[in-house]
């Protein structure tokens, strides 16, 4: 069991969760809950894959995936912001829609080999002992994109004027509106952007990390894990990234466990084919529950950083007493 390899795999798969989680962070920081991430990821995955199959160019596939994700995000935004529909139901509807539509569109796409996005090693950095092999050696370009996006997202949110507006819109839309900040416009923009990143996350699977289309199994709950990660990360991009990598390492760890004959001197009950592997499969989902519990406990949501207006549509001056 090569821990280094496991960690490297975790970084790769974690990038998927990371993109989805950061997109969700932007959406939720603006005050809109997006539960359609799973559906958007599936659509991004299938759109990216099938475009790559037909054009032979994975970069085009990547762009198409992001556009598709963005369109779905915009749909969610319009329905919840301008039509004031319930955000929870709209997100769920998007998940159903994305799942079903992805199944329809992915029909007949076998897990044939389409072109992949290139993987590369970064020269100097990959020579760093231990970390270099994990982080910078033979990773997909999207992984490196992930490394860059995280600090950029943090900087944008915390240190810039647009970030201040974003935070205000999510905390207290009435105050932002009174100061001339366009609440609805910003929310539309950020939710759409969240969709773009979700599409990117989906494409990361089919074009980089686990190439091929496997129907629903392609995403298999990662979108929901990303939503849970956002709560765990307390809406902070850097924590989300760390959580994503850690979570993603669980899968390869399980596989690694399955390759070992004995654990701590005892015969390995988790070998593939042994029914106990199913308990290992449960682990990521159990972890999400644990993580969400920890995130909700104790301290008031306000102190924890949940955007105060999350989930509540903003309407100017609707009748109050």
């Amino acid at each position, binding site marked *: 069991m090569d821990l280094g390899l496991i960690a490297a795999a975790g970084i790769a798969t974690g990038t998927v969760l990371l993109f989805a989680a950061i997109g969700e962070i932007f959406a939720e920081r603006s005050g809109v809950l997006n539960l359609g991430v799973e559906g958007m990821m599936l659509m991004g995955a299938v759109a990216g894959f099938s475009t790559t199959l037909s054009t032979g160019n994975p970069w085009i596939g990547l762009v198409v995936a992001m556009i598709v994700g963005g369109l779905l995000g915009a749909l969610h935004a319009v329905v919840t912001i301008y039509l004031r529909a319930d955000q929870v139901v709209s997100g769920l509807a998007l998940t159903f829609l994305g799942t079903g539509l992805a199944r329809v569109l992915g029909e007949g796409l076998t897990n044939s080999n389409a072109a992949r996005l290139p993987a590369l090693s970064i020269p100097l950095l990959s020579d760093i002992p231990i970390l270099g092999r994990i982080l910078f050696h033979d990773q997909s370009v999207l992984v490196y994109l992930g490394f860059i996006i995280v600090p950029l997202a943090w900087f944008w949110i915390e240190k810039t004027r647009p970030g201040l507006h974003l935070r205000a819109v999510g905390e207290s839309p009435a105050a932002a509106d009174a100061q001339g900040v366009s609440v609805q416009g910003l929310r539309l923009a950020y939710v759409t952007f969240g969709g773009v990143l979700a599409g990117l996350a989906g494409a990361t699977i089919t074009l980089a990390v686990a190439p091929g289309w496997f129907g629903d199994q392609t995403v298999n709950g990662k979108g929901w894990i990303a939503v849970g990660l956002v709560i765990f990360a307390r809406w902070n991009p850097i924590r989300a990234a760390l959580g994503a990598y850690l979570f993603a390492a669980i899968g390869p760890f399980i596989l690694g466990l399955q390759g070992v004959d004995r654990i701590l001197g005892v015969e390995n009950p988790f070998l593939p084919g042994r029914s106990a592997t199913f308990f290992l499969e449960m682990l990521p989902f159990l972890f999400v529950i644990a993580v969400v519990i920890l995130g909700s406990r104790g301290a008031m949501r306000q102190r924890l950083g949940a955007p105060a207006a999350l989930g509540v549509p903003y309407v100017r001056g609707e*009748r109050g*007493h």
Partner: protein
Amino acid sequence: MTAAATPGSPPPPPPAGSPLAVEARGIVKHFPGVLANDRVDFDLRRGEVHALLGENGAGKSTLMNILAGLYRPDAGEIEVEGVQVAFGSPREAISAGLGMVHQHFTLVPSQTVTENILLGLDRPRFLLHERASEAEIGRLAERFGLRVDPRARIWQLSVGEQQRVEILKMLYRGARILIMDEPTAVLAPQEADDLFATLRSMTAEGRSVVFISHKLGEVLAIADRITVMRRGRVTAAGVPAAGATKGDLARLMVGRSVLELLDRTPSTPGEVVLALRDVTADNDRGLTALRGVSLQVRAGEIVGIAAVAGNGQSELAEVVTGLRPCGGEILIGGRSVANKSASTVISQGVAHVPEDRAAVGSAPNLSLTDNLIMKRYTDAPVARGWLVDNASARAIATELRDTYQISTPTVETEVRLLSGGNLQRAILAREIETNPGLLVAVQPTRGLDVGAIETVHKLLLDMRARGTAILLISEELDELIALSDRIDVIYEGRIAGSFPADEAEIGQIGLLMTGGADTDRETAS
């Protein structure tokens, strides 16, 4: 017109020949079913404090909202410093130098003072230069005596301090004309004096202030000129404050000399119904709100609680009605109810008219009927075993609607469609019909028009006459003095003083509400 080059610098002199900062002519504004402004004229001179007086519903806020760019008038013209304007948004009004501080603050609670003031501005362009902005804001605050810490987060500030932030927001944007909507509603008398000093320093520089209020005494104290509105019309335009009397103003406001005739016969209080001993409690943020409160309310007696917002009176109401845990002892009718559930307290004969009638006192999307049976759906005749008898529920609702004159299309109408006054009538109807031994009423007349206020006062006095003990919490000192048999003042979670009704005097109460004679205190909590 653009804002001044640096925030807070003295405004440029107006174009020659226009002593008027603002002139509005023939303003008309409709809302569904109501003519809020009926051909209103209004003018504001440079360097003056102009009070806009009228009762709730008179149309003063509407008029000012139009000036501040929130509403568009249906008809009429507005000139700011001699130039005709038509604002499409508050942002445009601010660029013209006109800013408004509303009754309900528009601040982001979790962000700092600096972040709130910078919100929505065009500069700094991209990166937030927090240190530099903080220093600038600090200097601005100094100049006008608006003491506040630029690094503090809004939720940490007292209401008075939050108001200062709102004012600073306007000044930072170079507002030369400041409109303040009922600013002293949330201030104690001493804080109000501080505010007046700030306003005076602004007018000394040549800025102009419009001061909306319904309090006669205040208006006479601070204003240079007064405009009175009533039912959407101006009844007195720009009358000099010197030489006006309360009686004159009252007549212009409501058409009669005295505002309200309350028939409060001397009471003969009975047994002690509610007793608090050394009650302590925390607020929602985990800070101590009540630090050992002891008081008593007898049957047939109204005890009024006077306090500035944020000194523990909300928590006091919640602790008595079983909505908040506490330390110490609370006895109702001799039974201990501290830390018992709300349902236990209700079954002890306690009725509660809550502060937030829309979000707590009622379920907005349920019918009037459903709301009226909220406290009696487990008893006959509404309940039949574990079923709810819809027919008898409707009958009861119809009866209550008639008795308490709740204006509504049907008893099945959703209560969110009722006006504030009618919703309060409904809540009072429901609570009174439970025949309580104790009634806790919190801000019962907030935001209501005169007719509804009179109704509420009458109902309270009726209950008092019937022997109910009433704990009345209100920010309206006039209301407390008129209704209460005794007034207890709460400051920082403790009873600071207690007066029988005939000894109550506004000045003294006001002093205690802010912790004594110490007017240099920074914060109130």
